[in-house]
């Protein structure tokens, strides 16, 4: 593990600019090994391997619009994988992240429709609801000291039930009403779900958001005090507290960041598909967590990066759509997906072990 990902030095000094040859742990290593030791390099190599593999076996992948489609699928996973990864670096995780996306979309849709409001009112209220869910998760974890697995499992079930019951109660159906003819919809669609032309290829705007969010998250993690706090609370909560890191604030804000991500992806879904089915989203939390873990975030916290999950999400999108582009027998679809991902994780593991052993 390189020093940039380590908890203790991160507490007191901004880690990235502080790299010097005089540092005892990195001085004797070559540049290649230093690179390999970064948590995102393994997944980067895995992603390249998967990409090259499909470039050879699935000719349609070479087309620009196919890549735009793969990146679109990756971005809807990736935007959520980012805050989920930061939360994991901070030593917690969130099982309610998948259904929270749907909760947000349902809130915005039903509020605007039932009260016949401009859809932006729904969008803003949905943001507040999503942040509140995140705050609740974080506050419960901090106050009770229970594992976030238990707390967020509870939230997951609550949200799943509330999504269904409230939607049914309000709309008398299990899906929301079409809001595409309402005021503000066109604007909101431009913001959350538009696409633009790049050399004749339609590129979805979520891809831009995804990369921008990843850049911001990387900067926050590596260059700010808050980034240090995240590594510190994930590495060792008690010693972090001892040196003055606001543990409760950091953890609660990380959960709220996941809420923000859920809101964003939820708005994208709402303004792409006009309606939302209340039963969706179940199982997505595991895909977000997988993308983060494949991206080099430890399940135990304290290590990881923001760029790793970008490649993790890309790998998901690439494998999932690559199998379709290759035209393979779809009965094996899930099995292919599993084998590819396991393979990628093993490359990831092998690379980081080789790098840290020397």
């Amino acid at each position, binding site marked *: 593990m390189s020093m940039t990902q380590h908890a203790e030095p991160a507490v007191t000094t901004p880690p990235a600019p502080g790299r010097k040859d005089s540092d005892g742990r990195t001085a004797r290593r070559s540049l290649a090994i230093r690179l390999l030791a970064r948590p995102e390099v393994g997944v980067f190599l895995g992603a390249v391997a998967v990409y090259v593999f499909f470039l050879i076996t699935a000719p349609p992948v070479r087309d620009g619009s196919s890549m735009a489609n793969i990146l679109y699928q990756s971005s809807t996973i990736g935007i959520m994988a980012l805050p989920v990864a930061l939360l994991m670096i901070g030593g917690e995780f969130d099982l309610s992240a998948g259904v929270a996306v749907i909760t947000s979309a349902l809130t915005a849709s039903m509020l605007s429709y039932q009260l016949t409001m401009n859809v932006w009112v729904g969008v803003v209220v949905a943001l507040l609801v999503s942040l509140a869910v995140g705050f609740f998760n974080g506050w419960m974890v901090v106050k009770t000291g229970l594992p976030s697995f238990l707390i967020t499992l509870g939230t997951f079930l609550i949200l799943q039930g509330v999504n269904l019951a409230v939607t049914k109660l309000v709309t008398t159906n299990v*899906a929301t009403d079409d809001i595409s003819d309402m005021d503000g919809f066109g604007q909101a669609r431009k913001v959350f779900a538009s696409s633009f032309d790049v050399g004749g290829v339609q590129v979805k705007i979520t891809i831009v958001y995804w990369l921008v969010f990843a850049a911001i998250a990387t900067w926050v993690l590596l260059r700010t005090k808050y980034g240090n706090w995240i590594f510190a609370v994930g590495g060792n909560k008690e010693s972090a507290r001892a040196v003055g890191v606001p543990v409760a604030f950091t953890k609660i804000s990380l959960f709220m960041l996941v809420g923000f991500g859920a809101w964003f992806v939820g708005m994208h879904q709402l303004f792409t598909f006009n309606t939302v089915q209340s039963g969706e989203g179940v199982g997505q939390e595991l895909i977000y967590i997988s993308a983060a873990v494949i991206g080099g975030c430890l399940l135990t916290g304290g290590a990881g990066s923001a760029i790793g999950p970008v490649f993790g999400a890309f790998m998901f999108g690439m494998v999932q759509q690559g199998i379709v582009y290759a035209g393979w027998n779809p009965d094996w679809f899930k099995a292919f997906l599993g084998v590819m991902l396991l393979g990628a994780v093993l490359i990831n593991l092998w690379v980081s072990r080789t790098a840290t052993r020397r």
Partner: protein
Amino acid sequence: MDSSSPSRSRRIAPVVAMAAAVALTLAGCSSSSGGKKSEESADGASAGKASTPQMTVALVTHQSPGDTFWDIVRKGAEAAAAKDNVKLVYSADPNAGNQATLIQNAIDQKVDGIAVTLAKPDALKDVVAKAKAAKIPVVGLNSGVSEWKNLGLMEFFGQDETVAGEALGNRLNSEGAKKAVCVIQEQGNIGLTQRCAGVKKTFSGTTETLYVNGTDMPSVKSTITAKLSQDKAIDYVVTLGAPFALTAVQSASDAGSKAKIATFDLNKDLTSAISKGTIQFAVDQQPYLQGYLAIDSLWLYKNNGNYMGGGEQPVLTGPAFVDKSNVDAVASFAAKGTR
């Protein structure tokens, strides 16, 4: 109690002002189009109420939560229950073992009748036998058209999934389609597999299967887009549920494909897509009718000893085609969520 202390009213005043401001802001944010205000407030079907003594009927399905299709089945059952003075106990679980437990629960409650879906008939065999032993009449609906008699059910209401698939395949022939892709949103679901198999059987062109992750719409969209750009020869996309058909329309436009869309099952957004012509047609198995008849049949049996289908033949509720020619007649009912 003197409540006119100045300090308190001074504290309340800003709050009231804030609330008023928020209310005014919200009023200013009203949408001038769409929304609840434009929705017609039409009442559901209602046909008086039977004067027979109240009976209790359990409806136990394999519904997964939040699915528009099952919501329509349940509404049909509720309408029949309201008319027949029946107390309806609804429960559902997609896991066959849990569904069996729910049926056992109904037996223990000593209900007057049970309606079940037979998505996984083998798992429900024993518990259905127990209901018969307890002298509770059992009818089947939706799935299990080939198994209901073997299990000793009294009547059955639903469509034969294979027959429905075959009907859709024939329709594709008459539309002049050459290559269809059948989109399955839940890998390993028997009914969905039978539909695609039926399409393949009668369709004279080529049929391919595509699996998508039904709980994640963006991934459904990308996967169909990927398939359409991988195989430009595809000229028809067949989906097995209404929400997936609406998504497939976006996929086709993203992939720059000319493929047309057809689907199984309806909902209210789908009917408007059919009248706009973005979706060609839907095969409707009339879920409302399935729920309605299942409950009504148990009431008829108890109060008049009747058997629908003569106790020998299933009562088929589909396949009924909804396309541009008849969608207007269906649309007003679909808007209420009952078709």
